[in-house]
């Protein structure tokens, strides 16, 4: 009798204890899930919040904002065509420099050209380049890089001035300077993702090509790079997004001139540099216009980043 009594009370005690632990456990599950979802909510919230605050400017200027070259805080008329132009041109210059460099380095470091104790520090050094604050790169750009580049710019303008791209007297702060600096800022991104892609390719691809008598570089160019193409394209897209959104280096090096110039030796401006340099002293309507510009930048980079994500994801699904 007593024995069964105690077992009964024990089992109810266990039940009761299990319940509080059970609820704690459930609560933990849902709290962590809410925090995980918070990041998706944050992404949507950012777009909506900036969109809502920019609404007065959106209503006033509509899509004409994207095609107008006027930025006149006195009359409160705004347009960002020169900034869109500057953003795209500087990003394109950056890609033209960084893609061959980054891809070349990715191949060089993913092959066994060098012993690991040499290639690992090089890879690490290139990754460190990404860790340098952009405001430090901007400072260095103003006081070291621009004086260093001056003779090259003079050469371009003197001897290649007949090409419209170089058809002006050289300035230090220019779209070209920004493009070159951006190239080195996005280089680590291209290198590390492309290298990761090349390293993770199945080894039988290489073995097959080698068995057919291909040289190492024929294997790389005709087999490995095509096989890793989507990963490489993804890395380039991510780099493009980074280049378009880079702010401090742009604000410090591009010259912040509200003009469209064919010559890349002329100062220009990017959406990010416009926001950084004007937000401080902006009145209410100008703030709305700047937020509209921010929304444009956000949408541009979102499209590029989402495409990059999809391309990289698709590649991973095929390989694993």
């Amino acid at each position, binding site marked *: 009798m007593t024995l069964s009594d105690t077992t009964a009370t024990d089992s109810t005690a266990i039940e009761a204890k299990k319940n509080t632990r*059970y609820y704690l456990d459930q609560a933990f599950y849902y709290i962590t899930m809410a925090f995980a979802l918070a*990041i998706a909510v944050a992404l949507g919230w950012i777009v909506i919040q900036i969109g809502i605050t920019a609404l007065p400017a959106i209503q006033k200027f509509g899509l004409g904002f994207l095609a107008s070259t006027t930025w006149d805080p006195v009359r409160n008329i705004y347009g960002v065509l020169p900034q869109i132009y500057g953003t795209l041109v500087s990003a394109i210059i950056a890609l033209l420099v960084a893609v061959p460099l980054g891809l070349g380095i990715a191949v*060089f470091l993913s092959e066994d050209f060098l012993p690991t104790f040499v290639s690992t520090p090089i890879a690490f050094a290139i990754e460190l380049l990404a860790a340098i604050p*952009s405001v430090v790169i901007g400072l260095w750009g103003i006081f*070291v890089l621009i004086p260093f580049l001056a003779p090259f710019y003079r050469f371009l303008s003197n001897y290649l001035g007949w090409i419209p791209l170089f058809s002006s007297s050289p300035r230090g702060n220019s779209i070209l300077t920004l493009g070159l600096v951006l190239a080195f800022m996005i280089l680590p991104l291209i290198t590390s993702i492309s290298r990761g892609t090349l390293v993770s390719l199945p080894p039988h691809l290489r073995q097959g090509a080698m068995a057919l008598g291909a040289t190492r570089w024929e294997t790389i160019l005709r087999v490995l790079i095509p096989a890793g193409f989507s990963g490489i394209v993804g890395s380039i897209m991510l780099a493009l997004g980074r280049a378009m959104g880079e702010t401090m280096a742009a604000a410090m090096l591009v010259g912040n001139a509200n003009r469209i110039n064919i010559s890349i030796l002329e100062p220009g401006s990017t959406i990010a540099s416009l926001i950084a340099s004007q*937000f401080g002293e902006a009145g209410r309507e100008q703030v709305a216009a700047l937020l509209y510009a921010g929304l444009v930048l956000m949408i541009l980079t979102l499209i590029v980043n989402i495409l990059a*994500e999809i391309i990289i994801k698709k590649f991973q699904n095929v390989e694993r």
Partner: protein
Amino acid sequence: MTGLSQPKMPEPSSVQLEKVWTSMRNLFGIFMTGLTGLFAVIAVIPLAAIVINVAEKGLPLINLDLFTKLPPPPGLSGGGLGNAIVGTLIVLAVAVAISVPIGVLGAVWLSEFGRGSKIAYWVRFSANVLSGVPAIIAGLFAYTIVVMTMGSFSAFAGGVALSVVMLPIVMRTTEEGLVLVPEEVRLAAFGLGATRFETVSRVVLPAALPSIATAVTLAVARAGGEAAPLLFTALNNNFWSTDLFRPIATLSVQVYFFAIIPYRPQQELAWAGALVLLAIILLVSVTSRFLTRKRVY
């Protein structure tokens, strides 16, 4: 019948089996190897140049004043960046307080409960996309939700902006660390009758502590150098301030303002500030690198 004549075996010709060093294919390979190697050297040059230049121009100004004094008025020399260093720490503390709990617990859900689910896929997708969103957009966001509602620029707004920058880094890096904790450890805990909460809080999280530390240091290193999100959230302040709800100076913003004004003493302070910033960030990056390397359960 006539068509079925015995096919003639080709005459055995002497096939070259050795590598011809001067063949086009081989020379091309050597050329490409050299070229890409040269690229690697070119890529390291700016890093070396930046570090050397910043050290060269910043080191002469490293003294006690730099860490304790206020910046001098335009054109005058002396003084330091004490308020900006303190301000950077305060803003980073706010950002860590917001982003680390959300990031780490979100990562727990991704690795422990949501693995392979559709929701986890979209959360990871959002995290990756958010990490590609320009930092200046994070600043605009914090401006609209904090500065506009509270009516003033503040250290808190700066922290909110930086937390947006940090959140995806914390979440994704922590998740990568949590996934490395062996499944057997969790099964053992479950076998002893632990709930999921007990397993995570007493077994998985302690085991993943080094990788969580890596995640936080990486995020702090990234956010500590950001100036763009702070330009119109924390703004700047020429005086000492520890008030969360007032504008505050930060190193990165101070370097920016001092770099673009035409006074020599200020420009020199900018180099000193850049050196402090660079030293902190390189130190943290290298530390986190070693933390990751030792990450074995």
